[in-house]
């Protein structure tokens, strides 16, 4: 148990990480960088679930289990995104997000 740490302190950390991830998402063009930024944002959301469960409802377990689901969904998302990136790289020899228009005909 950590004494003296309020809910707001942890929420501030997760907010800052979320906005840093968002900054990376809007500035980068490389798709792997975009994926890394999304992972940062998902991590901060998981931190939110944990802090609400532990600091506000310590007798319950819902936040804990939803963090497990969140991690599973994040793993699935990364596997699919990397498959798409690699198949796109095979077609165009580039993974820049602003050059992805092969589906627009």
């Amino acid at each position: 148990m950590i004494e003296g740490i309020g809910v707001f302190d942890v929420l501030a950390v997760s907010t800052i990480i979320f906005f840093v991830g968002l900054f990376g998402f809007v500035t980068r063009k490389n798709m792997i960088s975009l994926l890394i930024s999304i992972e940062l944002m998902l991590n901060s959301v998981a931190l939110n679930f944990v802090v609400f469960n532990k600091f506000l409802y310590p007798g319950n377990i819902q936040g804990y289990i939803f963090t497990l689901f969140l991690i599973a969904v994040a793993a699935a998302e990364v596997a699919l995104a990397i498959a798409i990136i690699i198949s796109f790289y095979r077609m165009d020899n580039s993974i820049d997000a602003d050059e992805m228009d092969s589906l627009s005909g």
Partner: protein
Amino acid sequence: MMGAKIIFYILAGLMILFSILSVTTTRVIRAAVYLLFVMILLAGFYFLVGYNFLAGVQLTVYSGGIAVLIVIAILLVHNIEHRLEQIPTFEYLWKGGTLLAGAILFLTTMRQFPFERIVGTEQVSVSDIGVKLLTLGEGGFVLPFEVVSVLLLAVMIAAIIISKGEKFKTEDND
């Protein structure tokens, strides 16, 4: 009791530092390694609040699986010395400034909400989680559990088919 507080602030500071480094560095492989550091520090925070099983899952799935997957994707696609283009200073200023203003607005709004922290001594045991995940009745999570299982299966099949891509097409045409 003071020790845990100091550890929390060290973890928080390092997490913020490495996340900022991860989005601003121009070497893409370093960005992946800084992301790995953020994940490991987050697992440290889970250990700090006593969620040991969750910390183990975070370490195995995130730092063991996802980080390695991203590093392998980088190695397949780029040279290891590959550098991203520098973000122009203008973009830094207006995008960073807008998001900083958003974050400050968010934090000041959140600051006004009176969170009442409850100090509980309950420990979550792994058997509790296992029972809850497969309980059909009240407070059970069997439906999301099954949905996530089907999702994982579908994603794995889709990932194989998508990344095989061209080869499938030529085999069909033969």
